[in-house]
């Protein structure tokens, strides 16, 4: 059964290392869906097997065994988990559980802040809020951040002035796609999985990148012109850069974010990604394997405790 305990860890490592290329090869909508599902399942399974390993080792300690009324020796028999591995698992699952919890709390706080700011933006007309601002900005405010309100698109006058009408259509279609396909949910779920299982951090990054590509593709399809969509992205990016030079304190350009815009523009100038059923199927197979291993590990752990409990009853 110990092999089953190792599968989710191996699956996390595999998903983490392959997420970026998988995300680039698959059509973005498929990539986001399979990577988010994969990240969630492997994070859950990893948390579960770490807990199982920890419990199997801690359960051998005489005071714990006496309290639980099972035989510590029987728990250690057969193919036992090494003591150090069990202790490390206990430490890891505690730290990671706390990290995931803190991450969830932080997301909740951010959503409340967004809701408060969103409400003070005033009423939306046709799902759109225009903000008079010299910084070219555009973003979607998901309905989840606005209790009792539907999602809305926020765009600044500077951004609107920077783009010709046809490219404004691209921008509006891009933001509407974020709202319609609930992209924020994928991003937040993938980030939560990565907080609980740091091996999955590249998968969360690939999902974040993937939702932008997904919205770009929806927008390009809606205007029926990939090059037009590429122009809108490039022009908006350059407008932001130009406005940034005028700002007194330049915004910190964080690594790994800015490069995406060049890549997104290039992706729109290239033909749309082919469907790759084999690659998507491979990720799905990994998800199934992880689920199966988790089930085997659960059954195995239960069996061991049952055996240990009968062994304890016999010694009485």
């Amino acid at each position, binding site marked *: 059964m110990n092999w089953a305990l190792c599968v989710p860890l191996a699956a996390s490592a595999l998903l983490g290392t392959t997420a970026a290329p998988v995300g680039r090869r698959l059509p973005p909508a498929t990539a986001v869906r399979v990577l988010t599902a994969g990240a969630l399942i492997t994070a859950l399974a990893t948390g579960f097997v770490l807990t199982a390993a920890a419990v199997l080792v801690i359960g051998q300690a005489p005071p714990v065994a006496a309290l639980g009324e099972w035989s510590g020796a029987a728990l250690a028999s057969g193919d036992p988990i090494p003591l150090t591995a069990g202790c490390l698992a206990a430490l890891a699952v505690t730290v990671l559980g706390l990290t995931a919890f803190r991450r969830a709390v932080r997301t909740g706080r*951010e959503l409340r802040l967004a809701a408060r700011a969103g409400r003070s933006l005033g009423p939306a007309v046709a799902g759109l809020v225009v903000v008079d601002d010299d910084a070219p900005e555009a973003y979607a405010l998901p309905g989840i951040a606005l209790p009792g309100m539907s999602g809305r698109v926020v765009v600044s006058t500077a951004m609107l002035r920077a783009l010709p009408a046809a490219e404004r*259509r691209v921008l*509006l279609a891009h933001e509407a796609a974020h709202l319609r396909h609930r992209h924020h949910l994928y991003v*937040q779920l993938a980030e939560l999985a990565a907080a609980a299982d740091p091996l999955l951090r590249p998968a969360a990054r690939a999902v974040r990148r993937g939702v932008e590509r997904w919205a770009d593709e929806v927008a390009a399809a809606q205007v029926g012109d990939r090059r037009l969509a590429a122009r809108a992205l490039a022009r908006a990016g350059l407008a932001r850069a130009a406005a940034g030079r005028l700002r007194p304190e330049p915004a910190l350009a964080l690594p790994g974010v800015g490069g995406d815009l060049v890549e997104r523009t290039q992706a729109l*100038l290239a033909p749309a990604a082919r469907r790759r059923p084999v690659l998507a199927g491979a990720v799905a197979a990994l998800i199934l394997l992880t689920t199966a291993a988790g089930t085997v590990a659960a059954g195995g752990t239960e069996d061991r405790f049952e055996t240990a409990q009968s062994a304890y009853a016999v010694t009485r």
Partner: protein
Amino acid sequence: MPTIGRRKGALEQEVLTALAAAGRPMTAAEVLAELDDGLAYTTVMTTLSRLHAKGGLTREHSGRAYAYSLRGDAASVGASVTARRMRRLLETGNDRAGVLARFVADLPPEDEQLLADLLAAASRPQGGAQR
């Protein structure tokens, strides 16, 4: 270019952004010219009056037609405070915790030229890139 199936509400948003970009009152004919998308005049006119009925636009007589403008005191103090607050949230959007993401993020300086080249390439008539 012919119009490809619009989302519901998309035309209303396009009309609103056209008015916001212009920053001055516009008649239906002016909005139609600005959108330049093979739309029918009556479609634009209907959209404008629907937006007016919803309270999103104000209108005044301009000759025989109405000139529409965005309702809302964009210049009010509250708007700029809110814009700043949202910007702070967006800055954390670049962080892992961010709940909001921009249409386009900030560029590293070295990408600016690259993007300008891509824009030029995408603006050339199709097939012209080889010449």
